[in-house]
């Protein structure tokens, strides 16, 4: 057990003896205006130290080498250190790469270190710092014209560098350009830096304007303008003087930053916001001007839609004209004449549309509306253009256009006769109530009528055929009819004795034929009597009948009065009707 322990201890001893080479930094997070110390330490006397490339840093001091060796309790320890002082050049995550040494033919490397560089931080005053005089004498100030503007209201940021009379500036460079997220920004170029005099914190200072920027906030809410950081080479006077009595100046280096500014942007009021508001803020004039309104076919005209004035000229869209489809409108030519000064953009923007009429006639271009938010009154304003009427004097008319397109082979058939037709002078007004024939009762009646008639016709024809085929019944019917016919004939011949009796006799014969179903040949008096009696006829009436037929024959040749004729007729009628009733 003990032996194992010793073994373990021995191996650890062996580890102790290993070469150590590592990099240590004073801090891993620092501001842009702070310094960083990095030490590369090793416990052996290594050679051929290769320093890493300090990308993103500037070496302020170094490398400085130190070697120390010590014996403590009989054990020697060795340490060799290369030190650097670094100043970051940029913000963000920076990487210090590997350094390398060589020892006993072997190369050892450190592990890379990640450094996080934040925005410049304000450094606490150190009374012993040599830069104390520079701190008190040099200031960077950002002047914001308005801290609570509306969206798209111009604000200006002016960066001024104040410096007192007793220091001099030899050079400066921007470390961190200000970023204007959520702003539309435009720098106003400053051609030459001019030192001016001004009061600052109650003292007289000189100042230069470094940068002027016009900003148009694009978003409501709290927006932050990132600060401007400058590295300035300054000349600081010392208390010493040279042999000529002049003050000896020392060159120094100073970082200043303007500090972040927060701007709270107001949204435009929702109340009274026009529907076609496209974001224009300022004070504008709106014009729509056609180059001409009377055109011939094939001529073109320009329609210029322009907005002039002061405001966020580049940040809104011009309204588009809507034209009838008989006018062909091409994409606009956009023109901007905008000056940007400290007070914001001003000038004129315009869209010029080329319009070519296709057909003859009068066409109107609808009035156009342009809305903007007026900052001085805090309200929305709308400017409307007038309606423009374009008179196309000749050219194909609208009506034959479609004919032309449907005509064969793209041949544009132009006929001058087609024109807008005049009103109709005659009319026949009728009620608006729907009056459909199809689906009405009349329709159904008329359609179904022939089909209903069909079976009727069939039935009638069937019946007629049945009647026609019944010979026996027909004969009876015919005799009956003849009897009636002769009887009526007899009645008509009542004044003509001879004809009357002939008719009367025929009537009676036919009556018998119909009733007794006999032929003329079988007609003898006895036969008639038997047959009539056998058919349940009253014997007296049968006798009357016989005597009447005999009378007919006699009376034709014997003289008789008209009253007798009348009597005979009445008698015949009575006998026939009686026989009819009695016979089965």
């Amino acid at each position, binding site marked *: 057990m003990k032996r194992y322990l010793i073994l373990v201890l021995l191996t650890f001893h062996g580890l102790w003896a290993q070469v150590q080479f590592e990099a240590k930094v004073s801090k891993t997070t620092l501001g842009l205006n702070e310094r960083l110390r990095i030490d590369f330490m090793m416990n052996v006397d290594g050679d051929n130290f290769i320093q890493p490339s300090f990308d993103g840093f500037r070496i302020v001091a170094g490398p400085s080498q130190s070697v120390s060796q010590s014996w403590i309790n009989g054990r020697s320890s060795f340490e060799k250190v290369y030190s650097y002082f670094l100043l970051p050049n940029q913000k963000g995550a920076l990487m210090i790469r590997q350094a390398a040494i060589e020892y006993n033919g072997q190369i050892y490397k450190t592990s890379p270190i990640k450094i996080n560089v934040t925005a410049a931080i304000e450094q606490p005053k150190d009374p012993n710092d040599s830069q104390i005089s520079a701190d008190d004498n040099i200031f960077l100030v950002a002047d914001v014209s308005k801290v609570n503007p509306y969206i798209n209201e111009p604000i200006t940021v002016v960066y001024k560098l104040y410096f007192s009379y007793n220091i001099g500036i030899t050079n400066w460079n921007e470390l961190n350009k200000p970023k204007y997220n959520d702003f539309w920004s435009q720098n106003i170029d400053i051609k030459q830096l001019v030192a001016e005099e001004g009061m600052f914190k109650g003292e007289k200072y000189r100042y230069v304007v470094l940068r002027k920027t016009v900003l148009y906030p694009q978003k409501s809410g709290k927006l932050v303008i990132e600060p401007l950081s400058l590295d300035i080479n300054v000349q600081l006077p010392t208390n010493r003087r040279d042999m000529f009595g002049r003050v000896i100046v020392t060159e120094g280096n100073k970082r200043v930053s303007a500090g972040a500014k927060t701007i709270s942007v107001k949204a435009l009021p929702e109340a009274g916001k026009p529907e076609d508001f496209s974001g224009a803020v300022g004070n504008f004039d709106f014009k729509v001007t056609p180059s001409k309104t009377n055109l011939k076919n094939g001529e073109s005209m320009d329609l210029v839609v322009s907005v002039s004035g002061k405001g966020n000229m580049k940040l809104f869209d011009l309204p588009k004209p*809507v*034209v*009838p*489809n*008989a006018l062909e409108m091409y994409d606009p030519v956009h023109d901007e004449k905008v000056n940007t000064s400290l007070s914001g953009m001003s000038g004129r923007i315009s869209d010029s549309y080329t319009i070519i009429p296709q*057909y003859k*006639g009068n*066409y*109107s271009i*609808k009035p156009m509306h342009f809305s903007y938010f007026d900052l001085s009154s805090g309200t929305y304003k709308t400017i409307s253009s007038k309606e423009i009427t374009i008179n196309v004097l000749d050219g194909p*008319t*609208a*009506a034959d*256009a*479609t004919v032309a397109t449907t005509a064969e082979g793209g041949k544009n058939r132009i006929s001058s006769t*087609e024109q*807008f*037709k*005049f*009103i*109709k*002078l*005659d*009319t*026949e*007004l*009728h*009620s*608006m*109530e729907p009056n*459909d*024939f*199809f*689906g009405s009762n009349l*329709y159904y009646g*008329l*359609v179904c*009528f*022939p*089909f209903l*008639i*069909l079976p009727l*016709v*069939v039935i009638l*024809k069937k019946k007629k055929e049945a009647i026609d085929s019944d010979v026996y019944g027909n004969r009876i019917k015919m005799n009956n009819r003849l009897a009636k016919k002769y009887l009526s004939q007899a009645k008509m011949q009542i004044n003509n004795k001879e004809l009357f009796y002939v008719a009367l006799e025929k009537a009676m014969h036919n009556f018998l034929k119909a009733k007794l179903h006999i032929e003329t040949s079988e007609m003898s008096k006895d036969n008639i009597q038997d047959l009539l009696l056998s058919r349940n006829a009253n014997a007296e009436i049968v006798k009357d009948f016989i005597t009447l037929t005999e009378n007919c024959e006699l009376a034709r040749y014997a003289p008789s009065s008209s009253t007798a004729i009348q009597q005979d007729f009445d008698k015949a009628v009575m006998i026939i009707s009686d026989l009819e009733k009695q016979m089965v």
Partner: protein
Amino acid sequence: MKNILYIFLLSTQIFFAQNGFEKGNAFYQKGNYEQAVAAYESVLKTNSHSAELYFNLGNSYYKLNKVAPAIYNYEKALVLNPEDSETLNNLKFAQKRTIDEIKEVPKVGFAKLIQNYTDIFHYNTWAWISVGLSTVFLAFFLGYYFSQLAFSKRMFFIGMFVALLLFVICVLAAISGKSNYVNEKPAIVFAEMATLKSEPQNSSSEVFVLHEGTKVFVLETLSHWKKIQLTDGTEGWIEKDAIKEVK
């Protein structure tokens, strides 16, 4: 007595209406288009109309440069008299003043073929033809039933079935024509600008913007939205108030 009174009232109404039509014509001729419109509209208020009245009203609106009402009235005239060449001519003039240019994509297929065929006549005309054919059928039947000669009997028999077939075709054409008439609901966009949405919601995405005077076909209605189809086949939902149905 009461009936006579009604007839009297109706006739005076028509008389006044006729008067309004002529008054409108007089105003139109003088170039007083606004008063012409008022006169024609007064006729419409008496619940009587005619293709010519709508045509004249459309002309008046055209002269007043009101595109949507002009096209609307021309379309109404065409509903009453679909083949009128003057109306079709002036409608083309009015359509040239609209802003949207929508292609007319011709419909193809069997359904269109049938529709073309049924559109030869108005469905009421088809109905009259079918009545005539049913009478012809009856006549042929009678001829067949009563003729004695075998040849003429055969001819009548064939004729009878031909008439029956034609009759059925006519009735079907009338039915299909009427259903086309009922289902086809043209409308005119009256709003100066109206957005066509992909869904019947305000928040839904925009298909595109229509301007006044454009002809659309209504397919469905849902609360205050209407599903419409353009002549090029594009479909979308539009707010009810933006359009006015012709029928």
